[in-house]
């Protein structure tokens, strides 16, 4: 088999199956064949990630992590799944039963819908929408509603506080998230995720044209990843969970499989935003060097996704949680001005002639304000060494 055949094996298989399907059933069969792999692969990835995360965090905290179920503890998610399926599904007596029931469903539904526009490999996308990136963000905004429904319907102070925190945080960080993605849309001139990836899968001197390798692309990538971490409510932005003060946040009143669904939704959202970051900044399924293009495109996508997951675990294990005012201050005082400046920067990049000068100008335009803004913001806070009254 040639590398092309291996690369397109899933596309060819689908076309072969479609050849045996009668004409009337073609649209629905095509939809099922496209959607079923996503429904199978990403929850599996979620299961693997939970083990990797617990083991990775365990290593960082000088302990073993799960190592009892299966070889090296890798069957732990099976045990967790069976446990959560067999547990009693408790609905608090004062809860709003309908909304309480709908919230996890809406969350998982919205998380899955986002995968419709992610190109997982060459010619491997469920729907190549003209407004693909817009679709992604529109669906992402439905998650907020699900979180609110979960927190409000549980009729618990803790879950309501958690939902308020989560929604406030998601609204604040959605703005830098979208604005840092706009940079790529401006540079590419399209909202279609497939076209954005195709534009980056071009090589000069063996190196790809990823948007990461430009001043505005790099800046946008960092801002996007900070905002994405906050959007998926992960550490160091996991205030909505806040075990120490509000126990578990908006899903505290959920038990059994609904609780598992919240975790599934959270991780699926994290994978989807990572997938969008890969699509926008890291060239989607394209290989990092032209001599590695013989490796199938979907393998590159998943390698990049696994690298993102590793980075997320690493960040979770190393950074302390922010305070609420620090969280909001970071979003509104630092990230928002920087994303706006980044939008301005890509315009200058587009207008200036090719050459070393535009690299210098565009880099300086981002680095100097970032440094000045960071200095100004930290000076006002009067940071000093914290002294403990009783612990010393």
């Amino acid at each position, binding site marked *: 088999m040639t590398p092309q055949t291996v690369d397109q094996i899933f596309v060819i298989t689908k076309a072969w199956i479609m050849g045996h399907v009668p004409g009337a059933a073609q649209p629905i069969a095509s939809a099922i064949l496209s959607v079923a792999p996503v429904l199978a692969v990403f929850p599996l990835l979620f299961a693997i990630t939970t083990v990797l995360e617990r083991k990775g965090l365990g290593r960082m905290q000088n302990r073993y992590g799960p190592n009892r179920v299966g070889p090296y503890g890798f069957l732990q998610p099976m045990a967790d799944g069976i446990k959560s399926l067999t547990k009693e599904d408790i609905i608090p007596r*004062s*809860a*709003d039963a309908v*909304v309480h029931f709908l919230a996890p469903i809406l969350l998982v539904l919205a998380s899955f819908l986002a995968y419709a526009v992610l190109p997982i490999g060459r010619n491997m996308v469920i729907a190549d*929408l*003209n*407004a693909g990136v*817009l*679709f992604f*963000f*529109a*669906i*992402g*905004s*439905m998650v*907020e*509603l699900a979180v*609110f*429904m979960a927190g*409000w*319907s549980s*009729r618990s102070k803790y879950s309501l506080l958690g939902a*308020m925190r989560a*929604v406030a945080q998601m*609204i604040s960080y*959605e703005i830098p998230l979208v604005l840092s993605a706009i940079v790529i849309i401006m540079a590419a*001139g*399209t*909202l279609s995720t497939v076209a954005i990836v195709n534009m980056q899968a071009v090589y000069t001197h063996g190196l790809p044209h990823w948007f990461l390798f430009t001043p505005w692309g790099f800046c946008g990538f960092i801002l996007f990843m900070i905002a994405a971490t906050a959007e998926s409510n992960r550490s160091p932005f996991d205030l909505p969970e806040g075990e120490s003060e509000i126990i578990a946040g908006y899903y505290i009143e959920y038990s059994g499989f609904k609780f598992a669904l919240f975790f599934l939704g959270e991780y699926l959202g994290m994978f989807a935003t990572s997938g969008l970051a890969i699509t926008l900044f890291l060239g989607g399924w394209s290989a990092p060097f032209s001599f590695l293009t013989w490796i199938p495109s979907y393998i590159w996508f998943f390698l990049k996704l696994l690298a993102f997951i590793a980075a997320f675990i690493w960040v979770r294990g190393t950074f302390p949680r922010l305070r609420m005012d620090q969280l909001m201050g970071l979003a509104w005082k630092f990230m928002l001005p920087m994303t706006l400046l980044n939008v301005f920067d890509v315009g200058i990049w587009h207008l200036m002639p090719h050459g070393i000068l535009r690299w210098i100008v565009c880099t300086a335009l981002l680095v100097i304000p970032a440094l000045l803004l960071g200095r100004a913001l930290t000076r006002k806070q009067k940071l000093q060494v914290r002294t403990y009254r009783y612990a010393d």
Partner: protein
Amino acid sequence: MSIIFLILAAITITGASAAMGLRNLIHCVLALTLGFVGLAMLYLELGAQFVGFTQILVYVGAVAILSVFAIMMTRSAGPDAEAEAALSASWISGLVVAGATFAVLAWAIITSNITAAASAQPEVSVKDIGNALMHNYAVPLEIMGLLLTAALIGAVIVAMPQEKAP
């Protein structure tokens, strides 16, 4: 009228009427969100991707969330919050306003020349919308931007802690 249109219309109307009829305000907002989603699906069914997704992004992602927040901050909205009467005191004026709005919209639709426009379905990409906004409609766009900026600054001024008088 296709079957998809009928289903979507049913969803939209169910959401909108539930938003008017339900007693709990949060339920009303959630039902209204269903109506918004139904409208967005109608746009998508007509092939207007940009409008449909923007409808979801703005109305479901922002308007619904903000209304919910506003309700929660202004009154108690627990699942068994005090139910209000189904008809408000000013239902006659509400009926008059709704009837007048419907009459104007219906008049505009009846008098417009629909048959000419419906002959060919235009392929409108997001790029065309962007070009139209940046060329033909640049001034209205800028005015909208100015208005929104003014609203933003106004909101910040309202929310700012007031300086103590010397």
